[in-house]
């Protein structure tokens, strides 16, 4: 190819104690979708933030269309034609689409501009297939549309290079496909597009080239069509990985956890869960699929009575736990691994040893109510060894652990309690491939030990890999429950978007 649109050469960025980017070379051409692949901490975010002017590089050179550019702030980046869609959208929720798009632009008079801006937004959305009504207020838009607003914002600023950080994390498979179509179209129009991701199948389906980073270095940059998922995984992790888990077929055991006609409201007192019925059996993983924010977290919290239940019933074996305290849930052997590891599951300011006893700390008190440090240490050491937590120092502050190691502690803590049923929420969100493997293994081994597991996850791959049955949640209702054998991405995806696969309608239990 001719000279690339953007070329970054020998980028070095150090943070105290780590080199986040070590002599990184990165190029993007006009007209291509370029995937940037790497595990957490591989340095991809750092690199993108340097390109977008949020970090200063220590050394290196960035040139755009052959000319060297100095990018010190985001404003410089925008001027140079670089735009970025962050994982967390940067939109003012109470403002309309057009207000959000012109926000922060140098303008001469607001009112006259808005009409003109509205026209341009209409044009842009028509040419690029980004359907958005400029006068809608952001908070009334679904996530997919908010993302389109973010992209329009970049196009409005005439960005030539579009960087999208984990753009599919909040989308249904169908929305993802639509997004990819838009990106393809933009690339054909001569834009350069970078998507930062760790989802291999997406890279295979949408990108032209892929750059793989590991430990702050670029490991390889190759044409997507000359590679395979396995090869990419190997390059990313640095060793062979198989993310296909083998799941033996087991007969379903007796019912353990019965949820009937559950109604729960969210923090704003809006209905979040409206009449959910689920029966969880021993020895099965019931996957609860759904796009984030469809009532999954509220359901999980309500099951443990961490959130008030409006009506309905939660029964464990034959004990009614609906309005019992979380401590009684523990006593009745229902375990919970929360999605928010850092704010709900763990005590970031305390040591590993102090974290592993949370919930069963009563067992570690002597008759005078003093904590038995020896017993705690022994237990903590055992947990750390069994679940291979690193570092293995039990006095290490939990807040400094990596996501994967923290998750091993949270999961291990519940497993060591030997519960009958688990509610596990987003168990691998933000984890490295290696850690994902370990967590999946633990979940399946608990299932094989006859435990009942409700697996709540927004990662469809995870659901499909681990579940015996798959329930799909949409706007607080169960759209249907499908046997793993009958499940396909398309079918689940439609249900995640609220569409019932009408013709067959298998096993829909309401």
């Amino acid at each position, binding site marked *: 190819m001719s000279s690339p649109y953007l070329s970054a050469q020998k980028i070095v960025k150090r943070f105290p104690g780590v080199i986040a980017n070590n002599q990184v070379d990165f190029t993007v051409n006009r007209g291509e979708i370029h995937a940037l692949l790497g595990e957490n901490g591989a340095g991809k975010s750092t690199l993108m933030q340097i390109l977008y002017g949020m970090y200063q590089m220590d050394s290196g050179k960035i040139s755009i269309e052959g000319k060297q550019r100095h990018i010190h702030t985001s404003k410089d980046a925008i001027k140079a034609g670089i735009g970025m869609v962050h994982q967390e959208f940067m939109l003012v929720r109470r403002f309309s689409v057009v207000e959000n798009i012109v926000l922060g632009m140098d303008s001469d008079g607001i009112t006259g501009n808005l009409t003109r801006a509205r026209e341009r937004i209409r044009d842009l959305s028509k040419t690029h297939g980004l359907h958005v009504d400029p006068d809608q207020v952001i908070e009334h838009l679904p996530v997919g549309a908010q993302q389109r607003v973010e992209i329009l914002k970049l196009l409005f600023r005439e960005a030539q290079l579009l960087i999208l950080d984990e753009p599919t994390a909040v989308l249904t498979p169908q929305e993802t496909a639509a997004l990819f179509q838009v990106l393809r179209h933009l690339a054909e129009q001569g834009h350069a597009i970078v998507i930062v991701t760790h989802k291999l199948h997406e890279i295979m389906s949408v990108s032209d080239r892929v750059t793989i980073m590991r430990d702050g270095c670029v490991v390889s940059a190759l044409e997507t069509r000359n590679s395979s998922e396995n090869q990419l995984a190997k390059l990313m992790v640095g060793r062979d990985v198989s993310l296909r888990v083998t799941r033996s077929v087991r007969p379903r055991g007796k019912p353990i956890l019965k949820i009937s006609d559950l109604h729960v409201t969210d923090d704003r007192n809006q209905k979040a869960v409206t009449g959910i019925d689920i029966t969880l059996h021993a020895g099965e993983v019931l996957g609860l699929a759904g796009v984030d924010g469809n009532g999954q977290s509220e359901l999980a919290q309500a099951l*443990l009575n961490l959130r008030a239940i409006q009506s309905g019933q939660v029964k464990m074996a034959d004990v009614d736990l609906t309005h019992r305290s979380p401590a009684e849930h523990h006593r009745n052997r229902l375990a919970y691994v929360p999605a928010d590891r850092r*704010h709900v599951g763990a005590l*970031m300011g305390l040591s590993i040893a102090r974290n592993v006893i949370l*919930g069963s700390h009563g067992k570690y008190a002597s008759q005078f109510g*003093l904590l038995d440090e020896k017993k705690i240490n022994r237990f903590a050491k055992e947990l750390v060894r069994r679940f291979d937590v690193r570092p293995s120092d039990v006095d290490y502050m939990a807040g400094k652990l990596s996501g994967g190691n923290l998750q091993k502690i949270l999961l291990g803590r519940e497993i060591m309690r030997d519960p009958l049923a688990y509610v596990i929420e987003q168990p691998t969100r933000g984890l490295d491939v290696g850690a994902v493997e370990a967590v999946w293994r633990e979940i399946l081994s608990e299932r094989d030990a006859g435990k009942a597991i409700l697996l709540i996850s927004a990662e469809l791959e995870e659901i499909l890999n681990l579940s015996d049955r798959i329930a799909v949640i949409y706007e607080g209702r169960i759209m249907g429950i499908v046997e793993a054998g009958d499940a396909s991405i398309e079918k689940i995806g439609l249900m995640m978007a609220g569409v019932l696969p009408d013709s067959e309608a298998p096993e829909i239990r309401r």
Partner: protein
Amino acid sequence: MKGVLKKRLEPVESVWVIAATTCLSIFLALLFGGLLFIPFGANPMEAYGALFAESFTTWRGFGFTLVKATPLILISLGTIVAWRTGFGYLGFEGCLLIGAATATWVSLETVPNGLFGPLPFPIFILLAITAALVTGGIWAGIVGVFRGRFGGNEVITSLMMNYVAIFVVQYLVSGPLRAPGDLPQSPRLPRETWLPYFLEGTRAHSGVFIALACVLVVWIVLLKSKIGYELIVTGLNPKAARFGGINVGSRQIMAAFAAGGLGALAGLVEVLGVHHRLLDGLSEGTGFIGIVAALLGKLHPLGAVIASILYAGMAVGADAMQRKAGLPASIIFIVQSLIVLFILASDLLRYYTLKFPFFRTPTTPSVPPEKPEVKPIGT
């Protein structure tokens, strides 16, 4: 500030760094405060020398320092218990006054025809301590219940309760407990109920032992026991606490009771050890300075003791300085405030490093380690 401060990747947790920045803050506060002596023609070094000499090297001054430090230690312990449980209680002035009133009442009833009759001192003091713990506990516990049961804002309610306590004491000393005479104050307490002096030739009373015993108890209960674990977990992260089966509301109420009780003991030692009667304006802000001492001690019992003694020593020295050299004691209060300000500001250094772009000569970027050899795998 851009260009001068550089964000650290993670905050510094090292005890030594925190200790060093704290010492540096105190030093800087003394340095800046020292400038205030210059208009009076005084040498700051000598003034400080006199200040600390009085409160820490003279027997009499040290006695006063202990007397001043005792209620501060108790208030700071109360602060530690409350704040570490996530209960932002500010009503220690009120607790102190309520505790003082309770101790006064118990003491005044420990006379031949009183409610309790004459009692041997150990029994009297146990009775007084229990009574103060109960009334102070209830006083703060009310706020705790507001918070724990109904989610009321404890900062506002506890501050307002301070005023209630002030007026309760005014009522008591001008009504039920008023001594014959013109002054709104209670009668002098019977001498047998005073906390005994224990250093010859000083005013140091044995209330300091009550305070130190409380330090030990708070230390053990908060940092070594199951209840303490539940309190700390509640304070660090109520969501995690609830998840861990801890009853957050009841733990907050418990912390409120304990904090109120400790605050009331501060009132008890003031009345039985210093004033020997209940009077209006007894507390003089002790209930707030104790909170400051706890914060300076990083909410650790030991740190709080050190900070309390330092604060008490400075207050004693300031009085002596004013008496002897005619320098206004307010300078020292300014210095005390500067210490707080600098220590709070020094926390910034845990999150940022300083860099001085104007001092640094441009250098060629140092060469990073060689890129590891990576062979592409596959075709």
